[in-house]
């Protein structure tokens, strides 16, 4: 039962280190809160719109708007395209009214679609403009929430994800949750093992009949437990305090973060063997941690060059980011996140073996 004793000891040390605890639990909340304030302003991107039964005059007007591409679809094909992410919105014309469904996974795209549609309809209906404006003004108080009017033509808005208040912050939140878990577990576990080495306790520990694997597993249990706590707090905070909607199961979110935390732990322990001091450990942040942000999906992947995109496949954060985004925004089921989770587990197994072998540096059996 050496593993449990090591787990108990590592956990005790962690719980008594108030500053580290604050770093793990309060810092993510603080940063998430700040980001919500900062990123609630939206950016522009290129948008694909599916049109169903829309008159060609309006379609060509829409196409002329910069950053907008239109594609003609049948209704069922359009809805499929929307679900699998090929298009960002479906515009359907029926009974002289427009029915628009937005994927809304990227709020800036939703806003761009709205603006483009509005202006195109206005251009298209120049003739009706004057009359309708008068009527529009007099009718404002009665306009229902989900419906807006452009030149007497009704537009019904529907959102696959979230609502009209969804923005960039909501899009990066799932990835941020994962990133915080990765970053703090990486740093703190790396420091902890480094500290065991520099204080000499690691050598003393290895002078007992303990197995190298027992040390690694003991650490894993302890940090896994901590990661579950941290994930719970971050998830609850984002849901309750920041009003972010989790479409899928919260349990999957915790599962993904748990596996990610173990990968981060194994990674932290591995990197700590290359560091001689805490400062050198910090120097790994720009090398190891920052690239994870770039390729985690916070910056849209489709805007990257093919070769650069390839790098993302060797970074654990990419898989965690994909799975988390899927669960939080699209309600992915276990079948849809199993591949990224398996890839993360593969990372975990490889890193763990490397760690167990790596401890040989300090004891030759």
């Amino acid at each position, binding site marked *: 039962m050496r593993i449990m004793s090591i787990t108990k000891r590592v956990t005790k040390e962690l719980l008594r280190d108030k500053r580290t605890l604050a770093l793990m639990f309060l810092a993510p909340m603080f940063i998430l809160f700040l980001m919500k304030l900062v990123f609630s302003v939206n950016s522009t991107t290129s948008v694909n719109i599916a049109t169903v039964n829309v008159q060609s005059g309006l379609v060509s007007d829409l196409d002329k708007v910069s950053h907008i591409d239109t594609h003609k679809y049948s209704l069922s094909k359009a809805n499929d395209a929307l679900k699998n992410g090929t298009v960002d919105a479906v515009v359907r014309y029926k009974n002289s009214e427009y029915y628009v469904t937005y994927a809304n996974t990227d709020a800036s795209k939703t806003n761009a679609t709205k603006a483009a549609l509005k202006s195109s309809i206005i251009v298209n209906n120049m003739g009706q403009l004057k009359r309708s404006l008068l009527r529009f003004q007099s009718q404002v108080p009665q306009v229902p929430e989900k419906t807006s009017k452009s030149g007497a033509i009704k537009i019904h808005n529907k959102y696959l994800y979230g609502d009209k208040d969804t923005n960039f912050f909501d899009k990066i939140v799932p990835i941020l949750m994962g990133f915080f878990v990765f970053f703090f577990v990486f740093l703190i576990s790396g420091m902890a093992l480094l500290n065991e080495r520099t204080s000499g306790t690691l050598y*003393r*520990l290895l002078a*007992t009949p303990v197995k190298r694997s027992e040390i690694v597993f003991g650490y894993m249990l302890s940090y896994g437990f901590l990661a579950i706590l941290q994930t719970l707090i971050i998830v609850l905070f984002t849901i309750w305090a920041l009003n972010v909607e989790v479409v899928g199961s919260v349990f999957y979110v915790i599962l993904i973060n748990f596996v990610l935390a173990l990968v981060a732990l194994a990674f932290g322990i591995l990197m700590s063997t290359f560091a001689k001091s805490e400062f050198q450990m910090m120097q790994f942040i720009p090398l190891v941690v920052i690239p994870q942000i770039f390729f985690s999906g916070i910056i849209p992947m489709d805007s990257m060059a093919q070769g650069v995109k390839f790098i993302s496949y060797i970074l654990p954060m990419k898989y965690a980011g994909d799975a988390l985004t899927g669960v939080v925004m699209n309600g992915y089921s276990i079948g849809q996140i199993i591949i990224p989770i398996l890839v993360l587990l593969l990372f975990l197994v490889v890193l763990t073996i490397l760690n167990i072998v790596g401890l040989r540096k300090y004891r030759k059996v």
Partner: protein
Amino acid sequence: MNDISVITLNNVVKRFGKQTVLNHVNMQIYPGQIVGLIGPSGAGKSTIIKIILGMELADEGSTNVFGKQMPNRRLLGRIGYMAQSDALYESLSGRENLQFYADMKGLNKRSSDMQIMHVAQVVDLTSSLDKRVNGYSGGMKRRLSLAIAMLGNNDILILDEPTVGVDPALRRSIWAELKKLRNQGKTIMVTTHVMDEAELVDEVALLLGGRIIAYSDPYSLKQYYQVNSIEEVFLKAEAINNAYNVNY
């Protein structure tokens, strides 16, 4: 000395880069003895200990403990080790440190409780056992470190400079305890660079220039070199060793 040696170093050579720290070291340690490994700082005392424990591998030669080739993880259960640095978990209490290492040594709950009480008494820490180590003085840390080494069913105790920073009264009680353990049949290896402590051991091994240049009981050593203290033995041996090296 008809007993079979418990620790045997056979022609051990250890290099760090270009520096040869141990140059064909031979040593046999027999059971029920306190062996003092004496040498100036940097002589390679800690390196010998790390090779015996299997933390370092010798570049040449072999090391046996209880007749088995080191490194060997299981044998570590029968060796108590006190490192040169205190190496304690600072945020844990003295008791928690002891409990942790008792678990690592594979003691069950009952015998670990008993042993913790006993070793705490030996190093006179019973009253501060529930205080956190970061509140301990330097001497208290050293004592806790020694207490940890004494945990378990050890046949061998290996202590790397155990009495550095310990006040004279406590030093005396530590040596008394070591003698008691020796009389129970345990084998104890102590390194020190404090020469007067060398008078207290059964066998002195002088480590100089990567070699054991003398290995005998203190009395015979003093007779052989015709001096009155181990310190003088050391100085004389060093001079002869240097002269030999120059001639060579």
